[in-house]
């Protein structure tokens, strides 16, 4: 490298001496900074300190009003009502013990409960901690009268969740409560402030993101006592949407009434769309009591209740289907061309198999039985024979085509799958081979097989509509606050499995006989307004000692050991508009305990307000090749 051209040394020195100018300028700058800092921090320090105390800016969240929830006809199910909410701002509290004591005294919380609440993770001590919503006027007054001593407590008017019909459809609607620590860490609930109400169950949980919206923020200037002085900036909450469910309020009401005090579940579906028209599970709970701040012991009572009121039996209760399963057996046999439906077998009430004897529910048997009678009178022997002939794997294959033993994909959290046993299933789960005797139990819906009332209804919708599998759904439409028109979702057709018209005709005719014929097991479901088709089931809670299907006299047993009663039906027979599945836990016989419940629900939907169908005829599927004539209202059949 060549040397860089440089100045004579003397000139360089001259230049370097001028650096003093730079020093002077910098020195002057530093000097004034120091002087100014001194005057701000030392001379006027206390003035500015006071300013900062009295002149604070707070960012507070504005909770969006949660979206409302309507039934399919626009009847409101959940809305919001203004109420008082108590907040505590830790930074502003002057006398901590006094404040906590006061809260405890007025609201009945224990000191530990309040401490836990206040010490919960916070972004900043200046952010208000929600203590309780839904204060009564008296409670508000008690806090207000002591305002000066209670610096740091603040009462805000906020909207609170209101479940218009109380317990009605509680398991479907769910409830909301404050976001907990675990949920704050979940990506689904990112950046939600403490105290945010989020859906914890049912629709409220499933569609939380739709209903919740984005919290807004407000920058406010407050004085040292935390009183709002003025709003500096405001970002309104946005994005919460209203939901329109598929539920039909009147049908839902009738389902709840019809089930009464029995434990069990009712599911009503529209076979043409998969819409859930009603879904109830008993015992239930009042969402209002769970929403907002729930007291620990209230919660404990609820979850320790042996009847499990928080369990949605319609989608989480798995029960052996009993004779309801015979519908599937009949379809399997007919589709496999294994039987001639008119061929009769002799039923003497027993079916010897190997070293065991399988019994019919009817002592002495049904005599000569063809397929039609086997369904109408629910002959077990016929199905022992049929099941043995078909084998468990063929049955399982058909059951899977109907979507049984798998989650239906209904839009509710925590749906249970149930079990459709097969030889492969047994090998996998029990590490044992399948015994042919077990097929006989399965054939009458006992043994390993079990599924949910929803799945039972699901199966029947496919029988009713000719093999279309619509995804069961609860959400029909969503409205934005900014748009007037709700967005209606079309039904989701999952699959069409081809069941021959012949098979359907035979099975449906038999199902009609179950209700409409004199010897049918569900005469109690007969309506004077329309024809109903269905199948009863009686599911054993304990396996009878004499072998599956034995006839232990269940009336002698205590209630909790009695059989579960099933009835799954569709109506009107000619043009099915509704499918209803009823399960009564320990109800005894399907015909006596479950069928009358279904009848009430069917009548509620079909008779009292026949034109209740906002989705219109366009998205409906009717029976292939059948006339679409409607049943005259109130007419005789």
């Amino acid at each position: 490298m060549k040397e860089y051209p440089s100045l004579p040394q003397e000139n360089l020195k001259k230049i370097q001496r001028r650096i003093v100018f730079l020093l002077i300028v910098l020195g002057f700058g530093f000097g004034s900074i120091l002087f100014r800092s001194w005057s701000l921090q030392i001379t006027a320090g206390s003035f500015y300190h006071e300013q900062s105390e009295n002149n604070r800016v707070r960012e507070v969240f504005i909770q969006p009003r949660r979206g409302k929830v309507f039934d399919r006809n626009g009847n409101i199910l959940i809305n919001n009502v203004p109420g008082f909410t108590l907040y505590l701002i830790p930074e502003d509290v002057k006398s901590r013990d006094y404040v906590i004591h006061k809260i405890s005294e007025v609201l009945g919380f224990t000191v530990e409960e309040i401490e836990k609440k206040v010490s919960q993770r916070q972004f900043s001590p200046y952010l208000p901690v929600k203590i309780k919503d839904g204060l009564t006027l008296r409670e508000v007054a008690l806090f207000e009268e002591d305002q000066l001593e209670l610096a740091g407590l603040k009462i805000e008017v906020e909207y609170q969740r209101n479940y218009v019909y109380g317990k009605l459809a509680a398991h479907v609607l769910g409830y909301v409560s404050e976001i907990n620590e675990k949920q704050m860490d979940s990506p689904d609930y990112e950046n939600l402030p403490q105290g945010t109400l989020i859906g914890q169950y049912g629709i409220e949980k499933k569609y939380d993101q739709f209903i919740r919206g984005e919290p807004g923020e407000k920058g406010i200037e407050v004085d040292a006592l935390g009183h709002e002085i003025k709003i500096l900036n405001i970002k309104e909450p946005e994005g919460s949407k209203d939901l329109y469910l598929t539920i039909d309020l009147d049908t839902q009401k009738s389902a709840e009434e019809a089930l009464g005090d029995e434990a069990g579940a009712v599911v009503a579906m529209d076979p043409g769309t998969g819409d859930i028209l009603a879904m109830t599970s008993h015992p239930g709970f009042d969402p209002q009591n769970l929403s907002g701040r729930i007291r620990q012991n209230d919660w404990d009572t609820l979850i320790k209740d042996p009847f499990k009121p928080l369990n949605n039996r319609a989608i989480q209760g798995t029960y052996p289907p009993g004779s309801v399963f015979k519908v599937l057996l009949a379809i399997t046999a007919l589709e496999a061309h294994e039987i001639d439906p008119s061929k009769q077998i002799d039923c003497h009430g027993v079916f010897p198999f190997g070293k065991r004897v399988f019994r019919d529910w009817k002592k002495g048997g049904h005599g000569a039985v063809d397929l039609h009678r086997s369904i109408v009178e629910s002959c077990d022997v016929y199905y022992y024979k049929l099941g043995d002939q078909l084998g468990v794997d063929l049955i399982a294959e058909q059951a899977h085509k109907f979507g049984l033993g798998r989650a239906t994909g209904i839009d509710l959290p925590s749906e249970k799958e149930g079990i459709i046993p097969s030889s492969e299933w047994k090998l996998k789960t029990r590490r044992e081979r399948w015994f042919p005797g077990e097929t006989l139990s399965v054939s009458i819906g006992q043994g390993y097989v079990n599924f949910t009332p929803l799945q039972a209804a699901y199966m029947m919708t496919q029988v009713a509509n000719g093999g279309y599998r619509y995804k069961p759904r609860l959400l029909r439409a969503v409205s934005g606050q900014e748009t007037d028109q709700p967005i209606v979702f079309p039904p989701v057709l999952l699959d069409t499995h081809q069941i021959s018209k012949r098979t359907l005709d035979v099975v449906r005719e038999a199902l009609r006989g179950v209700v409409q014929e004199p010897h049918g097991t569900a005469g109690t479901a007969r309506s004077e307004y329309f024809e109903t088709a269905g199948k009863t089931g009686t599911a054993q809670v304990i396996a009878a000692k004499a072998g599956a299907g034995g006839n232990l006299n269940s009336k002698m047993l205590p209630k909790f050991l009695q059989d579960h009663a099933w009835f799954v039906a569709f109506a009107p027979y000619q043009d099915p508009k509704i499918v209803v599945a009823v399960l009564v836990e320990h109800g005894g016989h399907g015909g006596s305990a479950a069928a009358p419940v279904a009848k009430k629900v069917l009548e509620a939907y079909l008779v009292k307000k026949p034109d209740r169908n906002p989705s219109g005829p366009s998205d409906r599927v009717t029976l292939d090749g059948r006339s679409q004539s409607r049943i005259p209202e109130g007419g005789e059949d």
Partner: protein
Amino acid sequence: MFDRRLITKFDWKFLLIVFSILCVSVLSIYSVSAYKEQMKSMLYVKQIYWIMISMIVFFIAVVIDYHTISRYAYLVYAVVVILLLLVMFVGKVGLGAQRWLSFGFISFQPSEFSKLGILLVLAKYFSENAQGSGFRMTQLIFPVVLLGIPFFLVLKQPDLGTGLSMTFIFISMMFLVGLRSRSLVFIGLIFLMLLPFLWNFFWHHLKSYQKDRLLTFINPTVDPSGTGYHIIQSKIAIGSGGIFGNGLLGGTQSQLKFLPEGHTDFIFAVFAEEWGFIGIIVLLVLFGLLLLWGIDVAFKAKDSLGTFLAAGIVGMIGFNLIVNIGMTLGMMPVVGVPLPLMSYGGTAMVTTMAALGLLMNVKIRRFMLFY
């Protein structure tokens, strides 16, 4: 090219000072971002990444002989001007000004780099043309043009702070090169005569918010929730710090986002609120040592190029420092000037560290007579 003496002559004390200031920066940014909203973006972590990148740049700027760098000064200058032109056409708009160039994953502010460009090109020109007796008027035309092009480009963005910063680099070198007394008087007279016109021109080219800033600087209480808001809140934040400060994370004003831009232009207020007058003294001592060190480099440089480079760098850092702190203290109008080594922001960090690298470069090579 690498010389053992680079290590033996390397001044580790200087690096210690720089590191101390960087630590203060990270702590202060952490403190601001401890508040909920910035938490997601983890600004202080990003700042640490930028510091690491800047360290690499720093060492590159130390290793390559400054004479070699100077030989490419006009090239660097040209690149900077092109980048500034690019900003005008494809730049990203942020906070009302078009300052950023974005390359997908990274975006930077060419106006920050333009300080380096002007520094290199002026140091080269002045050192090549300096005589002991000072500059003549005609000799100033070219450097003024060199300054003028990027100056007007950044002013257009608008980035008044960077424009003034460049001017101050120019002025600090002017101090050294000296003007003949006749020229000085002449310039002074012309300036005074042109002042009303200049002011008019200047004033009409300011954006309205810049005018507002100047006006509110004169009287901040005119619009306390608008433009004066920054100044008032900054003063409250600093003032409430008192002698000992409110402690780390204890600054109510900055924590509550009372202070907008707490992590960038008003980082000093955050620091002053939390560490008080004592903290300010410590910080000023650190910066003072840094600048004195730079002046020492300028004074002892082997050649005029080294002296001009060092003086320009001291001028640039000193100017940014005083103007930034001055504006947070309410002594100067709010112009967007970052606090060197402290404010959050990658481009400024890289620029400052590159400049400090150059300083070290000049210092180390003053002992090297032959190449």
